[in-house]
């Protein structure tokens, strides 16, 4: 396919579904659709976060009340700490997760730079910043895998108790979203290396950027709710 010459004014972006037609709102169909999708995602994470808060609240209540069925699901000293503090926050390694959160937030900056580079036709810059964003995202995911492994060894299991189910579900859903974002970035990077990511495709990069920023913002929320607020 690389040998097919496509004049810029007839580049594929023009023929994308929704392209071409003068839109009523002046916003491209694809971008409007993506905003709508993100609106839907807000409700998805809203429901997940609510479920997490309710489940962990109930879990802590059971631990404090000394329900033997619940106490049997994790090592005694962890349960004692949760019961004493009345919260699960002590279980987390806040400095470690803060560092990986910082890495994820920085990837939003490189995403902005990638979009800028693509729209300016700066091919070298777009490759650098797209790779940087994908790498930072991958670093965050590696951190999450490490964190899950540590927690699992400490006794927090998905099928163990409410805390485990809720924690792995919520952070796992977010991790899956970041992973999908990395796949999209890699796809953009491949296009970039094939010379198909020209300035007329800036909107595609912008839309991947919207998704990426959304996932970052959701992480800010999850980090606050899960790790920071007792």
């Amino acid at each position: 396919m690389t040998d097919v010459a496509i004049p810029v004014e007839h580049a594929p972006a023009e023929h994308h579904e929704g392209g071409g037609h003068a839109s009523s709102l002046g916003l491209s169909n694809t971008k409007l659709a993506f905003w709508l999708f993100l609106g839907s995602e807000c409700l998805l994470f809203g429901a997940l976060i609510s479920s997490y808060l309710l489940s962990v609240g109930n879990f802590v209540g059971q631990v404090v009340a000394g329900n033997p069925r619940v106490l049997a699901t994790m090592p005694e000293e962890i349960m004692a700490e949760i019961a004493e503090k009345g919260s699960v926050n002590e279980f987390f390694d806040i400095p470690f997760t803060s560092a990986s959160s910082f890495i994820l937030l920085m990837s939003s900056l490189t995403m902005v730079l990638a979009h800028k580079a693509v729209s300016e036709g700066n091919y070298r810059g777009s490759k650098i910043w797209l790779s940087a964003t994908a790498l930072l995202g991958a670093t965050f995911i590696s951190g999450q895998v490490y964190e899950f492994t540590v927690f699992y060894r400490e006794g927090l299991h998905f099928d163990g108790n409410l805390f485990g189910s809720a924690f792995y579900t919520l952070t796992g859903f977010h991790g899956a979203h970041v992973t999908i974002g990395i796949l999209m970035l890699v796809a953009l990077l491949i296009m970039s290396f094939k010379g198909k990511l020209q300035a007329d495709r800036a909107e595609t990069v912008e839309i991947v950027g919207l998704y990426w920023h959304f996932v970052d913002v959701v992480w800010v929320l999850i980090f606050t709710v899960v790790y920071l607020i007792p």
Partner: protein
Amino acid sequence: MAIIDKPLALPAGEPRRAARPLGVFTRPKEQTGISAWLTTVDHKKIGIMYGAAALFFLLIGGVAALLIRVQLATPNNTFLSGDAYNRMYTMHGTVMVFLVVMPIGAAFANFLMPLQVGARDVAFPRINAFSFWVFFFGGLMLNTSWFLGGGADGGWFNYAPNNGVAFSPSHGIDFWNAGLLVAGIGSLTGSINLITTVLNMRAPGMTLMKMPVFTWMTLVTQFLLLFAIPVITVAQLLLTFDRRFGANFFNVQQGADPLLWQHLFWVFGHPEVYLMILPAFGIVSEIIPTFARKPIFGYPFMVFSGIAIGFMGWGVWAHHMFVSGLGPLSVTAFSVATMFIAVPTGVKILNWMATLWGGKLILNTAMLFSIGLITQFTIGGLSGVSHALAPSDTQQTDTYYIVAHFHYVLFGGAFFGFVGGVYHWFPKAFGYILNDTFGKVQFWTMVVGFNLTFGPMHILGLQGMPRRMQTYDDAMGFNFWNLAATIGAFILGVGVLMLLANVAYSYSKWKAAGRPNPGPDPWDARTIEWSIPSPAPSHNFDVDPVVTSLDDFWHRKYQEDENGVVRRVHTGAEIAQPGNGEGVHLPAPSYWPIVLAFGIPIIGYGIIFSLWLCIPGALIVIGALFGWALEPADDLDAPGHDHGHDSPGHDGSGDHAEPELETV
């Protein structure tokens, strides 16, 4: 790579070499036959397929309903075991809500809305096809549970902890989760697609407040879907994690709160009831002005009451949970909110009646069904307000009074509106008119059957007959009205089947008469979908219609003379577009939507039976995604063009403006 031996349908002199797709398949070329339907991206065909699929599932749900009524016809009946009875009412409710009423709404939205806004197609034609197929495969998957261990048995709202493995060890509820999750993907992508179409692809001049009411109701409905689907998705995923992977979200032994399920379900579930009724509201808001020969009364109120219902629908979910011990403050707040939501609904009913008032009524079948909706929905609305009063609701919860209420709004309301809509738009979809006398007989059969079935349930409910109970004792005093309801149910079943009979009957008469074309505007209607030939050509509009007012087509037909008297200056057929699609470029059909949709339920089966099965499913999904991405949305070589249309008055070389060459 296909060898293209026919000339490219390109605008003259435009140099363009299209990249050929790398996909496994070449582009489908068929214009007719089964494979044309399987690969179509035409919103009208997809709308018709939604309708056909809904009718198929309606037969399943209807048979379940009749079996329930047979079981309840006499006291102490043993026709169905308790277990079979549980599956029957669960699957009846689930199928009717998710696979009948919702897709009929989607059928009308898909078929009509792009025509009403003057668009060539929806914003994303391939995603539209995907939405249909994934809904259809999800629905089939749900119904394969009948053969793979029995249907779900937890009630259509499937309360925790009753939905756990401990209380429902069969795979029924797993199918319920997986099938509805798969179908939900279709609802989500469909809603994004349709909202984008309404907001972004309106004809020149069609501002938001010049959109037909049906299009407005579609917009509100799709926003409700957009925000409601992720919530039920979370609920069903959590339940799947519990049932299949040992999570504890609804495990009360680990201190879980079963009310989490009720909240998640009804946060989805209440917007859900509005997104089932609003398309029907939109349909009758088109039918009533047409056959009352008057503009809709209070158009802005119609629109804003619909929007108000959409917003307020999110603040009333806990009225389903008044007896779950929410506490007096919550109950009061939700009780008041529920009473308030009756106001915009009442506004709509008032406006329909004011539209009818003083109109020159043409009481044809579509109009009768619309009036049936107003009447029966009002009865259901009044019993609904009686649930808003928490003390009264406490008495009625889980009795047949509730069953009577929601069938009056959903069947007597939404379904009657849909049947009216079928009669109204049938010529636009299929090119012939359904027999009106047959239709009127159908209407009265359905009215008698419906009211005989569900009217007595008010009495049974107030007498204390509980829902979801397999049988009742002879001495309880429920015998007479239950038998009446069973007789009514069979009359109603005949009434529904008469729609299919009428389709066949009218078709044979139309064929015998030499297939006369009903003309673009058989009803002297108001909106621009009637300004194109019947059946609608695949390219919809020859040229973009320019809209200057609400009910634009009517205003082009009727104008005031010098004395201020409204007179007809044109017939619909005179000013309708001839249906000449020469040179119009349409999105090409594609295999990928159905392939992608096929892979997803396989993953669902994998989660139920064996995770190994997820691998082929995921491979199909990934392969289809790649094929989809590499296939240009718009294949310049594909024969997806409408080369004219043999509609009356079309001379093939009309002097209409140069057709636009846009891709949509």
